[in-house]
C-alpha cells in the first residue's frame, strides 16, 4: 500500500515537473503572466509529492514492510530503527530518491525566499530546477524504482552492509548530497540569466551565499567521509584516492575557485565567462560523480551495482554540457569584458592564480580518475592509477595554494606597491623563516614537509599580523578591549573575517595531512600472549582474546596494554565482528588520539588453536587529529561569513 502511494506520487510529481518546464516557454510565447506564475505551483506540487514519496519509503523501512524489494534488501527485523531510517540511502534506488528530495527542498526554498524578487528571472530559475528534477523523477520511476515489490513476501530482510552500520552513516551521505544538490542553485540562476540575457551582477550577488552553502556542505561531507573511512574502515588511513572519493571531491574544486574569482568579477567586471564556466563545471561534476558511482564501471567499495542508470546519467551529462556551454557561446557577445590586469603583483592576479591552481588540481585528479577507463576503451590495456600519482601531482599544487592563501587576502587590489608588500608581508615572512629554522634544527629534515610546514606557518602569521594591526587600530580609535575589537571587526566585515577563519581551518587540515602523510610509521606482527611490540614511543603488550555475544553479532576482542615511554596509558581492544548475514568478519580498529599523534591498532587475525595469538597492524600517525579540528574551524568561519549582518537585520526590523 505504502509502495503504491510512493510510486504514484513520483509519477504525479513527474507531471508537475514537466509542466514546470513547459510553462515558462508558453509564457514567453504568449506573454501571459499566468504561465510564469504557475512555475511556482509546479515546484510546490513536486515538493509535496516527493516528500510524500520519501516519507512512504521511510515508513516502509521503519515498519519493515518486506513486500517492498528495497526494504527487503536493506533492513532486517533486528535492525535498530536508526539504521532502518539510514537504509533510505543505503542503496542506489533510495539514495536517488533522497537526492531528488533534497533537490526539491532546495527548489522550494528558492521559490519561497525570492517570491517577490527577481520577477523576470525566477520562472526560468524554477524551470531549470524542474528540468533536473524531471530527470531524477524519470530515473526513479522507470529505471531505478525503490518501490518495486517482491512476491512472495519474504519473512526477513537481507540487511545493510555492516560497514554502513555506523553513526556517521546518518551524516556523511546526506551532507554530501546536500552539497551536490545545493550547487544546482547557482547553476539554475546562471542558466536563467543566460536564457533571458540579463547578465548584470544580480544573479552573482544572489547566488554567492548559495554557493558558499554548497561549498560548506561539500567540505563537511568530504571530511565526515574521511573521518568515517578512518574510524570505521579500519585501514588506518582517511583518504585513498578511490574514484568515488575523487567524485565527491572534484566539485569542491571549481566551487572553491568560484568563491574566489567571483570577488574579482564584483570588483573589476572581469572573468564573467570564466565564472559562468566554473558554475557549469561544478554542477556537471555532481552529475558526473553520480554517473561514476552508480554506473558500476569502476570497482570501488562505494559502488552499489551496475545497470542502465549509468548510461542515462552519461546522456544527461552530455545534454547539460552541450546546452549550458551552447547558451554561454550564444550570449558570449554580452559577456565580453576587458581582461586587463593592472599588475601581476595584485590581489586580482593572486585570485587568478588560485583559480589556475584549483582548476589544474581538478584536471589532474579528473585525468587520473578516468585514465583507466580511457586506456581500456582506446588501447585495450588495463592499467590502474594509484594513490602515488594523486599524491605526487596534488602536493606541489596544494603547496602553491597554501602560499597563495597567505598572499591573497592581504595583498592590495590593482597594483601592490613595495610599501604595501613590506607592511603586510615582511614580519610574517621573517617569522615563518624562524619557524623553518627551528623545525630544521630539531624536527624536520625533508624538503617537502619542511616547505609545507613553513608555508602553513606563513599563512597563520599573515592572518595574525593583519588582525593584530586592525585590533590595535580599533583600540586606538574606539578605546575598545582586544575581544570587543575583534568582534566589531568581524561584524563589520563578516565575509573577510569569516574567510580568514576558514583559511585557518584549511591550514589545520593541511597540517594534519602533511604530518600524517610524511611521518607515519606502521608495523605488522603476530604476537602471543605476554609478548609485546615497540613502535615510536609506544610499547604494546598482548593480554588475551575475549569472545562476546552482541545483539546483532558476535565478536572477538584482543586486549592490548599500551605504554607511552614506560607509563601505562590504558588498554586498547580492537575487535573482529562476525555478522550472521555476512561471510567475512568486519574489523573494528581502535585508536588513541592526541594532538601530537594518533596510535591506531587493527586486529587482522587471531588464532585460538596454537596458543592464543593475534596478528595486528599498528600505526602511529602524527598530527592527524588536526584534520578534524580544522573541520570545526571551517564550520565556525562559514557561520561567521553567512550570518545575516547587523545592517541587514536592522533593515528588516
Amino acid at each position, binding site marked *: 500500500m505504502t509502495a503504491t502511494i510512493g510510486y504514484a506520487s513520483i509519477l504525479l510529481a513527474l507531471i508537475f515537473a514537466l509542466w514546470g518546464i513547459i510553462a515558462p516557454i508558453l509564457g514567453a510565447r504568449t506573454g501571459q503572466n499566468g504561465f510564469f506564475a504557475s512555475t511556482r505551483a509546479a515546484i510546490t506540487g513536486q515538493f509535496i509529492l516527493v516528500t510524500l514519496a520519501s516519507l512512504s519509503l521511510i515508513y516502509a523501512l521503519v515498519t519493515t514492510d518486506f513486500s517492498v524489494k528495497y526494504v527487503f534488501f536493506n533492513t532486517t527485523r533486528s535492525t535498530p530503527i536508526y539504521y532502518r531510517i539510514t537504509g533510505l540511502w543505503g542503496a542506489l534506488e533510495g539514495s536517488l530518491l533522497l537526492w531528488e528530495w533534497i533537490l526539491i527542498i532546495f527548489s522550494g526554498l528558492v521559490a519561497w525566499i525570492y517570491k517577490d524578487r527577481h520577477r523576470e528571472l525566477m520562472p526560468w530559475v524554477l524551470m531549470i530546477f524542474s528540468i533536473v528534477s524531471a530527470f531524477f523523477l524519470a530515473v526513479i520511476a522507470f529505471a531505478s524504482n525503490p518501490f518495486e515489490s517482491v512476491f512472495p513476501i519474504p519473512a526477513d530482510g537481507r540487511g545493510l552492509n555492516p560497514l554502513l552500520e555506523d553513526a556517521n552513516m546518518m551524516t556523511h551521505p546526506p551532507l554530501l548530497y546536500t552539497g551536490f544538490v545545493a550547487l544546482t542553485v547557482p547553476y539554475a540562476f546562471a542558466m536563467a540569466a543566460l536564457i533571458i540575457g540579463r547578465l548584470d551582477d544580480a544573479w552573482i550577488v544572489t547566488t554567492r551565499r548559495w554557493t558558499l552553502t554548497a561549498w560548506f556542505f561539500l567540505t563537511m561531507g568530504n571530511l565526515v567521509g574521511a573521518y568515517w573511512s578512518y574510524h570505521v574502515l579500519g585501514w588506518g588511513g582517511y583518504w585513498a584516492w578511490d574514484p568515488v572519493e575523487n567524485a565527491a571531491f572534484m566539485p569542491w574544486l571549481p566551487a572553491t575557485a568560484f568563491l574566489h574569482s567571483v570577488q574579482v568579477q564584483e570588483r573589476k567586471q572581469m572573468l564573467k565567462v570564466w565564472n559562468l564556466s566554473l558554475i557549469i563545471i561544478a554542477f556537471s561534476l555532481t552529475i558526473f560523480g553520480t554517473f561514476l558511482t552508480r554506473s558500476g564501471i569502476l570497482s570501488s*567499495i562505494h559502488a552499489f551495482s551496475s545497470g542502465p542508470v549509468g548510461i542515462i546519467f552519461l546522456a544527461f551529462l552530455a545534454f547539460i554540457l552541450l546546452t549550458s556551454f551552447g547558451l554561454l557561446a550564444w550570449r558570449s557577445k554580452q559577456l565580453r569584458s576587458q581582461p586587463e590586469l593592472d599588475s601581476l603583483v595584485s590581489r586580482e592576479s593572486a585570485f587568478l592564480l588560485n583559480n589556475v591552481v584549483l582548476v589544474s588540481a581538478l584536471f*589532474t585528479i579528473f585525468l587520473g580518475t578516468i585514465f583507466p577507463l580511457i586506456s581500456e576503451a582506446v588501447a585495450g590495456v588495463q592499467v590502474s592509477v594509484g594513490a602515488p600519482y594523486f599524491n605526487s601531482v596534488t602536493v606541489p599544487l596544494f603547496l602553491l595554494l597554501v602560499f597563495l592563501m597567505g598572499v591573497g587576502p592581504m595583498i592590495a587590489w590593482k597594483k601592490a606597491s613595495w610599501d604595501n608588500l613590506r607592511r603586510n608581508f615582511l614580519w610574517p615572512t621573517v617569522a615563518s623563516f624562524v619557524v623553518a629554522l627551528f623545525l630544521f634544527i630539531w624536527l624536520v629534515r625533508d624538503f617537502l614537509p619542511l616547505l609545507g610546514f613553513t608555508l602553513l606557518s606563513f599563512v597563520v602569521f599573515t592572518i595574525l599580523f593583519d588582525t593584530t594591526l586592525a585590533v590595535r587600530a580599533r583600540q586606538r580609535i574606539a578605546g575598545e578591549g582586544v575581544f570587543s575589537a575583534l568582534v566589531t571587526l568581524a561584524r563589520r566585515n563578516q565575509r573577510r573575517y569569516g574567510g580568514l577563519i576558514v583559511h585557518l581551518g584549511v591550514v589545520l587540515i593541511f597540517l594534519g595531512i602533511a604530518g600524517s*602523510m610524511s611521518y607515519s610509521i606502521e608495523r605488522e606482527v603476530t604476537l602471543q600472549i605476554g609478548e609485546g611490540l615497540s613502535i615510536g614511543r609506544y610499547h604494546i603488550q598482548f593480554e588475551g582474546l575475549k569472545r562476546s555475544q552482541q545483539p546483532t553479532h558476535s565478536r572477538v576482542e584482543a586486549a592490548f596494554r599500551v605504554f607511552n615511554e614506560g607509563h601505562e596509558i590504558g588498554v586498547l581492544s580492537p575487535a573482529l565482528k562476525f555478522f550472521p548475514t*555476512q561471510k567475512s568478519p568486519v574489523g573494528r580498529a581502535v585508536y588513541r588520539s592526541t594532538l601530537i599523534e594518533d596510535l591506531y591498532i587493527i586486529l*587482522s587475525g587471531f588464532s585460538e588453536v596454537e596458543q592464543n595469538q593475534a596478528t595486528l597492524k599498528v600505526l602511529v600517525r602524527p598530527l592527524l587529529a588536526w584534520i578534524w579540528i580544522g573541520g570545526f574551524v571551517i564550520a565556525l568561519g562559514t557561520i561567521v561569513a553567512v550570518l545575516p549582518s547587523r545592517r541587514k537585520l536592522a533593515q528588516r526590523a
Partner: protein
Amino acid sequence: MLKRNRRFIFGGIIILAALSYLITGSMREAMVYFKTPSELMADEGASKGKALRIGGMVLVGSLEKDLKKLTYRFRITDGVESIPVYFHGVPPDLFSEGKGAVIEGRLGEDGVFQATTIMAKHAEEYSPPKDGEHAATRSFVPDQKERGR
C-alpha cells in the same frame, strides 16, 4: 592590448608545460599495468622492476605461510603459466588456495614477484553465507584498502 594578450598566452603556455610535466612524470611512476601470468612470462625481461598488477588464481598446493613472521610464498596462475610470489604482511580475508586474487608489486631479478599488496576478488553485492558456511572460522579483515594517505 596585443602585448597584454601575448603575455597571457605566454603565461598560459608556461602553466600548461609545468602541468603536463607534473602529470606525465607522476603518471609514469604511478601507473600500474594489469597483466596475466602468461603475458608476464611472454615479456619477462622488459617487465622486471616495473610496477604491475597480476590477476589470477592462487595455485592449489603452492601456498607456504609463516604466520609468525607474516610471510607468504605461493604461485599465481592463469591456468597456463604460473609465477612465484613472495609477500610479507596480512593478506585479505578471502585470500586462499584456489581463489582468485590480484597482486600488486614488482618482478624481482630472481624471477620472484615481490608483492606489496594482495587484493582478493570478491563479489560487489553482499550476499548471506550459504548453509554450513560460517564466518566464525575466518580471521582476517575483509577489505584491505590500498594505502593512500
